[in-house]
């Protein structure tokens, strides 16, 4: 019951945040000098066409009415026509979003699993050489931007050593399986096509690792420090004195309580991952929503820009709700109602 109330409160809060975000996006889209109708039809179209379109786009009405029309259309999933692809933005997003989601999820898994593992090893071997190596690596990982990782990987593993492909989601000679979920790896599994599955994983590796390393290092540092704190607590000493082997203490007593801060940060890091995907997709020619968004931005395609930002906002908010739920499950002390302090 309390759980349902918590979810309800989070949902209401999220709706307000999304409404605010939509106003912000609308304002950004309207800062731009110039007439949106004129831009949609091009410079050489006759004036009456522009006037008709202005009428159609509700540009003659007051600003708040324009916003309400825009919001109504957005809620229906209608973001207008993209100036670049000349197709409905919604159709574009539907095509490109799964690729970004797949990349971000894959990066998130590497991020979480790798970070927790490195952090745990580091805490267990505290102040030994393994710990020092992990700490130096994770410091460098935090300060190196993901596009620098992407370029170094491209150069090293892609071009010089030829270990992994550096472009797109699938090799050309492999037939694309029927689109079911849009997540290529899952689609390949559904089509029972192991060759395509491994090929798509192979394509994911470099961009996903480049995207994950920053967050992973952050996760490793946080896991290490929480675990090191918990290691010196009395309950661990008493478990040790009972003769429980170290590996069991690690798995059963230490891991779960130490993961709480890590999971919270994992949610915040997801925002960084989605943001950095904008650069990494560009470098690895990944046909995702972020690359689509960048191209829209470079050509001032307002409909597409607005849709991309709004979708990212929704994804990010859903992630954070999920993180709150997981954290509450990990830590029975957290009162769900209290939420996270801000």
């Amino acid at each position, binding site marked *: 019951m309390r759980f349902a109330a918590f979810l309800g409160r989070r949902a209401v809060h999220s709706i307000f945040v999304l409404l605010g975000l939509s106003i*912000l996006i609308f304002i950004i889209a309207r800062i731009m000098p110039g007439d949106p109708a004129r831009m949609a039809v091009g410079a050489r179209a006759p004036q009456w066409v522009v006037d008709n379109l202005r009428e159609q786009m509700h540009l003659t009405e007051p600003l708040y009415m324009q916003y309400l029309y825009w919001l109504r259309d957005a809620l229906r999933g209608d973001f207008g026509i993209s100036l670049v692809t000349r197709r409905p933005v919604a159709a574009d997003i539907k095509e490109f979003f799964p690729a970004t989601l797949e990349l971000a999820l894959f990066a998130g898994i590497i991020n979480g699993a790798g970070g927790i593992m490195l952090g745990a090893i580091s805490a267990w071997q505290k102040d030994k050489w393994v710990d020092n190596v992990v700490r130096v690596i994770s410091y460098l990982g935090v300060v190196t931007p993901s596009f620098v990782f992407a370029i170094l990987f491209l*150069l090293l593993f892609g071009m010089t050593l030829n270990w992994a492909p550096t472009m797109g989601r699938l090799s050309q000679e492999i037939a694309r399986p029927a689109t079911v979920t849009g997540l290529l790896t899952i689609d390949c599994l559904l089509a029972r096509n192991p060759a395509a599955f491994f090929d798509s994983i192979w394509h994911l590796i470099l961009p996903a690792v480049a995207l994950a390393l920053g967050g992973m290092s952050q996760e490793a540092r946080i896991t290490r420090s929480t675990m090191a704190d918990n290691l010196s607590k009395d309950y661990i000493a008493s478990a040790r004195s009972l003769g429980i082997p170290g590996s069991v203490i690690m798995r059963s007593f230490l891991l779960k309580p130490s993961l709480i801060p890590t999971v919270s940060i994992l949610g915040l890091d997801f925002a960084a991952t989605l943001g950095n995907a904008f650069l990494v997709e560009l470098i690895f020619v990944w046909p995702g929503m972020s690359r689509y968004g960048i191209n829209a931005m470079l050509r001032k395609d307002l409909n597409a820009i607005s849709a991309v930002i709004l979708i990212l906002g929704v994804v990010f908010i859903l992630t954070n709700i999920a993180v709150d739920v997981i954290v509450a499950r990990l830590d029975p002390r957290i009162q769900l109602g209290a939420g996270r302090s801000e």
Partner: protein
Amino acid sequence: MVSAKALVSAQRREDLQRSWYKFSRNRLSIVGLSTVLLVTFLAVFAPLVAPYPEHASAFVDFANASRSPCPTYPFGTDVVGRDIMSRIFFGFRFSLVMGVVVLSLVVPPGVILGLVAGYYQGTWLDTVIMRTTDIFLAVPPLVLALAICSVLTPNLFNAMIAVSLMWWPWYCRLVYGLASTLRSEFFVVSAELLGASKFHILFREILANCVSPIFTKISLDMGWVILIGASLSFVGLGAQPPTPDLGTMVADGSKYLPDQWWIAVFPALAIVLVVLGFNLLGDGLRDMLGAEEV
């Protein structure tokens, strides 16, 4: 008789020495400080220390184009024959200017809004201010900055504006957290009882006790702001060529991978160096000032 003034100054000197001792005990903090000082030195005196200062902007020397690193050009030259090392030194200028301008635009409003929201916690002021930060934090900062840059004309100045618009909520949140705990401290309550003005309470009582975390965050954020600025120009929505911006240089160079790797790799490493320096410095300051909140 020792005068009170001399005592105070002796005390101050001792405090300073103690702080320096705390800071310098961690060798990494010293590395960070040295890196920041080195980068600042190279940026300020770029026209004097760069081997080829004229290569900083539009300059063409096809005879020496695409030279790999050699004694004359330690980091090689780009496809039109400009010395990469000189351009990196000038690039530091734009990076540092970006960081300083953005943070000086962002810190005052962010801090004041956080202060007000925290002190008036639970009132409509708190709701309005903090819910507004929620909206700004609902999207990755890089993405909104990119969007704002794209609707304005892409250049260095607009990139600074865009990043500033995205950055104030972090300071607002930091100071909000501090102010909402400080407001129930005895010294604040007694100032209220004595009838001190709100201005005095907000700025002299509460803000004075938030200074260390704010400064720690500023030094950490210098690196992040520089990084986000480089990301904007990497995409082509920040500083435009021929400005020797590190992000632009990486983007240009990435077209010539893998054969002419030095064009992209050295500016990329320069970005890592700057961010690393400010991070180590910030961590050192945090340990010295005991500002765990950041």
